[in-house]
């Protein structure tokens, strides 16, 4: 617990983080930026888990260890995505969503 900081303030920050990430994901065109937005989304959940665990259910560490798993999975996800984006760059010489898209309705 942090002195003089209630759970509401931290949850506000994490919710803002989540929606900033969602906004970034929906508006940006660069694939690397999309990955950064996904990191924001995942980190919002990490903050939420830790804070809820610490402030509301301090007896068990469920939220904390969940957040460790989220970080690990996010790292592997990013590694895979980056490798595929590099492959796409080799084929198309671009990482822009508009220029790489060939399949559409």
């Amino acid at each position: 617990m942090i002195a003089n900081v209630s759970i509401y303030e931290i949850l506000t920050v994490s919710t803002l983080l989540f929606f900033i990430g969602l906004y970034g994901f929906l508006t940006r065109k660069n694939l690397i930026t999309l990955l950064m937005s996904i990191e924001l989304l995942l980190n919002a959940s990490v903050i939420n888990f830790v804070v809820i665990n610490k402030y509301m259910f301090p007896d068990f560490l469920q939220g904390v260890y969940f957040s460790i798993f989220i970080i690990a999975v996010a790292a592997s996800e990013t590694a895979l995505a980056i490798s595929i984006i590099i492959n796409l760059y080799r084929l198309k010489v671009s990482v822009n969503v508009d220029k790489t898209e060939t399949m559409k309705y």
Partner: protein
Amino acid sequence: MRHEIILLVLILILLVFEIFTKTEQKKSLIYLALGLFAIHTITGFFQTTDGQLFGGSFRTNPLIHFFKNVLNVGVLIILLQSTDWLRDKVAHLNKIPEFFILLFSSLIGMYFMISSGDFLMFYIGLELSTLPLVALVAYNSADIKGTEAAVKLIMTAALASAISLFGMTMLYATGGSLFFNMISYQLQVSPLAIMGLVFFFSGVAFKISLAPFHFWTADVYEGAPIGITSYLSVISKGAAIFILTTILFKVLPVLSDYWKYIVWGVAVLTMFIGNLFALRQQNMKRFLAFSSIAQAGFILMGVINGDAFGATSIIYFVMIYIFSNLGAFGVVQAISSATGKENMDDYVGLYRTNPKLSLVMLMALFSLAGIPPVAGFFGKFFLYTAAAEKGYYLLVFLAVVNVTISLYYYLLPVRAMFLRKSDDAIPYFKSNWPMRLGLLLAVAGIFVIGLYSPIYNYIVELSKLL
């Protein structure tokens, strides 16, 4: 736990063989993997004990065990159908063992997902089942379409899991625990819990490709290799539907008034969007992608029931759906790996040159459309009953309207194959035995599940355990 351990051992065996096999002999690993997986499928049918591990994170019961067997049979058929493609088309890439290792890793993820007893195991299972699939979609790294499909898949999958994670944090805050049992005890109806439900549902809806979240489906299905496409559309979707049903019925029954609204709306939207977009597709893979979106909408009619009968109808339909879709995808794959053609126009006059393949396609499409002699009819019938039992007559009516639309486009390939004549039809070709066996199993499944009622009674018994 036996399924997981045997499959893990199988992956290790393949890894060891991968190291010690010469490059020219890598093709023999196809048959090794096929044989080992067939053994795994057969041993899966023996009974296991119930129980749980890791303090309740991992649980198993006869229903979960049965569903894992269904997934196994589906994967076996996919492997049988993929051998020709692996041996003739992509052998020069020199990554045959990777195909099996990644596919089996993804299957282990599915096992953990459907056996999960808390949200942590569910999340890990979901990611373990998705990430290898992304690598498989980009299997042919020189193919632009495949790479683009992989980018789309990983972006949407990551977004979906992030959204459902945010929902899980809210359910954790209101339920006080991550374990499904504890949450179903302690969860009260509150705005935060409903918000958590909405976020969680939309995350899983990406996975099942329900309507507002279906945009990735057609592109990924078109770009991926056909074996992976059929894996995505049947195994991945089936497992996600199973775990969604479990969570909605067992963990969040308190919120059932709310999720029934969501499911109602999403079901109608999914059916209409899937069917109407399928009308204008020419590529067979895109066509089957939209058909599978529409089928997911039908499955939601069983979810809205909320009882054991709903679970029965869902599992029964998912079984039928697996076999019918694998029949259809098998024919597409056979034609694609023999001639490279994937468009509906190429199928014109197929019956004159390849009557057996056309008959398999006919049975599969009839089963997907729900025409009586084959199993799809019975599956759809029970789904309608499940929705009508709880008084959702308008939903059933809209579903019947949708079946009428779907009949039109399911019969388009049939018309092309049987009624239209063409001089440059695909010439006669003979597939190898694994492909023929795969198609035979799929067709046998379509008939046996529909006509042999003890299977249905067995599922009824098992569904009480959900």
